[in-house]
Each structure stands twice: as C-alpha cells, then as structure tokens.
C-alpha cells in the first residue's frame, strides 16, 4: 500500500521534492493516509494552535477555535465564520488602468480596462495575496469554495466532527 513519510509530503507541498521522486508520486496510486499527513504538515508549519480542519487555499485554512469554525490566514488573521466568503473580510486592490495593469504585464498587450479588471484579495494583516479575480467591472465577488465540511468528515473520512 502506498505510503509517504511526513517529510516527503512536506517537501512535496513546499515544491522542493526532486523531480524524479515527484514524478513517481504523480504516477503511483494515491496514498490513503495523505489527507491527515497533509494536515499535520500544515499544522507544524503554522505558529498558532487552532486545529486545521481543511485547507481552502494555499495559505488559508478552516480551523477549529473557541469562537467556532473560522477561515484563518497562515499568519493567524481570522476572516470569521468559514461558511461566509472570506473575501468580503479581506483587503482589495483593483487594477483597472493601463498603468496598473502594465505593472504585471510589462511586455505584452493588455486587456481593455473598460472590459476587465484585476482584483487582488490580500490578508489585512500580513498582506499575503490569497486570490486574484479577473472579471468585468461590476461583477459580483465569487465565493470560491463552500465545502460540505461536516459531510466530508462524516461520510468520506468516517471521522465525524464534534457538534459546534
């Protein structure tokens, strides 16, 4: 049965596993224990104690803490109830001028700012860029992911979460 050490998974997640090994993992059958190994890798990466239940982006996690289940940035900043769209509690900066678009696209043709803008969603405390939206002006902000957290733990992992 395929199994990888926590170290291996840690390197993999960090994008530091040598290519031949990475390729082997890609081509092999998936390891059953992956999810919890992954959680432990992430848990030991963060400075805080709250239990990570589910990552929803590279540095955003749904965690258990005393005021319920919240979306949390790796830096520790909380975006509140995980059922709500964390983006609404984030900071934003919008690129909708030729000048601001040029900063990211110095050598190519760029979109028409009247047709499309780039929205950057940042963590208000550490300034990490969590998500980028490219959309028409006026387009509602997307709620990227609403996991069925309880169902996932109950039906797929067979380890139901405590009621909150």
């Amino acid at each position, binding site marked *: 049965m395929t199994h990888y050490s926590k170290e291996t998974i840690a390197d993999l997640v960090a994008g530091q596993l040598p290519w031949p090994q*990475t390729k082997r993992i890609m081509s092999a059958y998936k390891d059953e224990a992956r999810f919890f190994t992954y959680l432990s890798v992430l848990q030991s990466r963060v400075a805080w104690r709250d239990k990570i239940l589910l990552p929803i982006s590279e540095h955003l996690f749904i965690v258990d803490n005393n005021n319920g289940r919240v979306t949390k940035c790796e830096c520790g900043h909380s975006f509140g109830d995980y059922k709500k769209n964390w983006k609404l509690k984030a900071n934003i900066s919008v690129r909708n001028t030729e000048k601001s678009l040029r900063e990211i696209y110095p050598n190519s043709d760029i979109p028409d700012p009247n047709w499309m803008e780039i929205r950057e969603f940042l963590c208000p405390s550490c300034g990490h*860029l969590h998500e980028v939206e490219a959309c028409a002006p006026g387009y509602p902000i997307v709620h990227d992911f609403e996991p069925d957290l309880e169902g996932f733990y109950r039906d797929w992992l067979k380890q139901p979460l405590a009621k909150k």
Partner: protein
Amino acid sequence: MLKKNTPLKDRLEESERLMKSTGCYDGVTELQLRNQDPLKFETLHTKLRSACVSAREMARRISASPGVREVGEMVVAIYTPEGDAIALSNGIMVHVHTMSRFLKWMIKEGYENDPGINPGDIFANNDAFIGTVQVPDVMDVIPIFHEGELVAWAGAVCHELEAGGITPGGDVCLAQERFTEGLFVCAEKIGSNDKIRRDYVIRCERNLRMPIYWVLDEKAKVASCISMRESVLEVINEVGVDFWKQLIKEFIEEGRRGQLLRTQQLTVPGIYRGHTFYGHVTEGKPGFQPLGEPNWLYNIPVELTITSGGKMIMDFEGTQPWGYHSMNCTPAGMDGGMFVTLTQHMNFEGLVNDGAWMATELKLPKGTWTNPDNEMCATATSWALLLPAYGVFQRLLSRGFLARGFVEEVFVGQVNSPMIEMGGTSQYGTPFGMAHFECAAAGSGALAIKDGLDTAYVGWNPESDMGNIEIWEQSMPMVYIGRSIVPNSGGAGKFRGGCSFVSTWLISKTDHLRLVTSEHSSRVFDNAGMCGGYPAPTCQKHRATRNSDIKARAKKRLPLPHSPGIDPKKSDLEKLLKGKHITEEGPYITAPHKEGDVFTHSYNGGGGFGDVLQRDPVKTAWDVTNGFMTREAALKIYGIVLGVDLETGDFKADFKKTVTLRRNMRAKRLKQSQPVSKWMASEKKRVAALKFVPEVKRMYAAAIKLSPRFEKEFKAFWSLNKNFQIKM
C-alpha cells in the same frame, strides 16, 4: 438479457430505463464476471485498449494531414451496440462521448430500418447537433456483427485541416450560421462492404480546398475501424458472444463506479465556483454580416457541485446566449470538454470509458451558447469558449485536490491557443487550404508545486506537439524566420504559468495567401490564475508588415526581426523593417498576403499559482538566463534582484537585496489596498448607475434576461433595489 436481434432502438430505450430504475449502467447492479475472475476481466479490458491504440497508430501512418500524422489530432474507440464507449485509444479524448451521441442519434432516428445498418457499412458525421464539436471533427463508425447480430461499434475521428467553409481551414471563424461552416456530412452512410462510396469521395474532392487531407483521413479512419473490428471478433471468438455482451456492460458500470470512487478519493464534497470571460471584436472587419452586435463580452460562470455520493454536477447557469458567431457549442461539445478534462486528471489509466461520463452531470441552460435553441447557429470555433470554460473546471477540481492534500495534482489548467488558417495559391502554384496546428503546444497553467509546462500543453490533447518546421513548410507558402519562447507569457505567480511561443514567417513563393485566425480574446483575459497567481496575458494582437524591404536589408546583411520583441508599443518589425506595418486585433481577416510580407502569430501562456512574492529567486534566475522571463519582470513583479555570474555569464539571485525589496513591496501593496467593504460601497454606486461600456452593460442585461438566478444573486450582492433594470 434481451433476446438476440432485439431492435437497437428498443435495446437503447431499455438500457436507459434500466439506468434510471437501478442507478447502474444497463441495470448491472453486480459485477459478476469481474468478481468471478478479476484478472481475466482486466486482461480483456487491456486487450481492447491496446487494439484501439494500435488502430490509431495505423491511421496516423496513412493520414496526409500534419494535424493527424504530426500532432496526433485523432482518437478511436469501441462502443456497445447502444453506443456507449467501452475502450478507447489515446489522442483527442474529447470525441469519445461525442461519437457516442452520434451513434445514439442514428439509433433513435431508426437507421436500422432506413438507411439500414449492415455488416461492412460505413457511417460518417460532422454535424455538432448530431454529435461532434465542430465541422472539422469528422467521425466515421462501422457496426461490428457476429453471426448476424450487431455486437459492437468501432469509431474514429480526426480533426480535418480543411473543411471547405467561407474561409479556408477548419475552424471557420467567419461562419455566423451553419451554412458557411463548410462541408456537412450528417450521419450519412458513406460506404458499404468496407468500401467508401466513390460518389462520396467525389463530393469531398469537389467541395474542399485541400481534399487529400479529408479523403485520406477518411480512409485511415475506416482502416483503423476495420482493424478494431478484427480485434473485437477475436475476443468474442475467445470468450463467446454471451460473455462478451455481459462483459462490455460490466466494463462500463465498473468505469462509472471507479469515477465515483476517484472523486471521493481525490476531492472534498461541496460547491466550487469560478468564472472566466471572453471578449470578441469584429467591428469594422470585412466579411462579418451585421446579424448581431459586432463586439461582445461573454461571462462564463461555472458552479461545480460534488455530492457526497461522489457525483460531479457542473452548472453553467448565468452565462450568455448563443449568437451569430462561430463560437457556439452543442451539448455534445460540452460533453467532450468534460470528458477530455476528466481523462487528464482522474481517468488516465487507460481503462476509462463512458462509465466515467455517467458519473457526472452537465447543466446547460437552454438558449445559452452551451445549448443553443437554434440549430442553424454556427459552432465552427466552439473551442474558443470551450477551452476557457473547461479551464475553469480544471481550477475547480484543483481546489478540491488542494483541499484534500493531493497538491501534485493541482493544475491551473488550459488556455485558448489561437490557430492560424490559410488558403490561396501554394508554393507549388496550386490552390490549397490548411489549418496550422502548431497551436497544439501552448503554455499550461502552473501547478501548486512547480511552474506550468512551457510550449507543450493544450487542453484538447495532452499529447501536445508543435510539429517540425520542415514538415509544416511543405504545406504552406511561407518560411519561418522565427519560432521562439515569449518571455513573461506565463501568468505570474509563486509558480508561473507555462510560457507560450510566437512564430514569425516570411511569405514566400506566392502572390495570394489568405491568412485567417480564430479564437481571439484580446480585450479580456479568458484564463485565470489560482491562489494568488495572475492570469496569463490576453490573446496578443497580430503584427505584420506588407511589402517589407526584408530582402533588400538581407542583401546588406542588416539585422532582421525574428519575433515581435518585448516592446508592446513598437514591435521589432516596426523597428527593423520598412513597409506597411499592421497591428491587428484578432480575428485576423484581411486582404491576401504575398511574397515579401512578414507575419507573426503568438499562442497563449498559462495562469500562475500563488503569491509572486514567494517565488524562488534561483528558479527565476534560470528563467531569465533562458529567456522565459525578463530581468525587468523579475525585479518589478517578483521583487527579485538579479546579478550576473561572471564565471558562466548566467544570471544569479541577490538574496539579501531581494529580501529587503520584497519586504517593502509587501508593505506597499497593503498600504495601497482597502477593505473590501469600503470598496463595495463605492463600487455599488457605479453598478447602480450602470457606468459601464455598452459591451459590459449588454453582458449583464443578457445574463439577467436568461437567468433569474443570476439576476437574484447580482442584485443581492450589490444590494440593489428590486426594480433595478438594465435598459439597452
């Protein structure tokens, strides 16, 4: 089991009824044969798979089309009598289920009675509303009989490089209705007794600009179908026909169950959302009829629900209506997009079949471009919207992989790769027409653990390949003076998107060369990044020079342009050549080119992953040394300071300076940002007052008109009052 020689129509209806009542394919609630002897079961499946693979290889040897021979634009498969795929080759997987629709269509139309389905018959189709993606995707199927009973089908499809439409090539971007898309073959019996009818070949030869591609591909497909037929009959003789009938159903049911299991293994249940856009500009372009708005903007929202049973449901509610352009898609095409994506991420083990498709569901709102309620509309370039749409699907799936910990599977995904097509007088002085398929090698989106693949991925065929210059040049009257990687063409990110390449040609030995391009979204991004990564650049404009002085300069040994260069304001062509300079936003529809003209065309890169300020400086130094990125971009976008290694001349990172610079950039970006709540308050005024250009306004109006749900969500998000309306 139904008795021998039950009419196909009844068998199909019965099969569908059983699926409904039992939830399992054809009512196969238990995999008896598999449980009896799992190894024999696997072995037989492998056997059928390898039969498909070698049949496809045979066809590639025969084909005259660089699309098939050089870049493998074909796929073959074996089907149940009811038209469900049992086993398939590698190649353009997109068509496995489109052919299935074609078969079912013929069955439902009563083809068994008229025109009749007999041993040795050959049927062809390229009508998207019957079952394909676009006119150039021509499919051939033959029935497989055993002792007078139809026991299976063999099918093959190639992407043709010339379809005889209003513009040369296959992806006819000028088609605004089906009547200008090219030569249609609508579920037609084109041969019998293993021979293609001569009158059909004559029709092709007289209605296509480059008939040899189509005709020889047709022969190649039939040859491969016959070889699959032989393999199937071999298997039946080995295991017996009743065993076979049960076996193929179990293969598919197993495929269905396998898909549900994979989803439960690799993802997380819940609702995933994403979107992309597509902007089309034809204003003032010759040839386009004023049937609709010349310029338009499409929104493509996708909502993916993964149920606790592992079923995937994809919903396109809220997207735009079909239009008088070539980019509409049929449900068959939408199926295809779904299928090809699944085979790349979950079903790559090769034992995949239609079972995987049965474990998914597409919601395609009637009247939208995904399911037109008018079958006169054109679908010649439906890929233009399909690819962005399924790029979104790949990102949604990837969100699931990421959440589940399978970071190595995360893939920002596919992008459009605009094709150029051409026709006129060839370098041999003969009439010709061709689609240039080097576009089958764009940049891929980034992964969560490494950069995207440079110049070697397209969504429709993972076996991507740009082909040899010395082969392409045998089919067209222009010679390459450049084919090079485009720096910074991959979307920025901790892991950047794969870079694209750009080709530069000198038109040669012709005085009449029509160059046409399709799939262009230059006004808006039709791709995106993930987890903080940026989209790859929009589709690039074309740079060309007519009547250039290139030959004269060459005589004087003066420097010549080999690409448009990295100055978007003034291309190398403008800097280095005299002549009539053209910067044309696609699609490129202009007067014919001739000897001495220079033309450039670039493909697209993929979106990035992660925050640019986390990108590895060492990797970046390698990028700059090898021309995937400019030093300027490394500094200004990524905050990476590079020096030069005097030993090797390679670039190397200055870590200390980089750390300081990045600290400042992070502080600056935070300072320039504002809370979303604050931004929404001000933005709401703009929305309420509809301060948008007409294309954007029209997009909202159309989405609201088609989708009450979109209207509800739009108004709710901006808290607009109930009687808010968009009047055009």
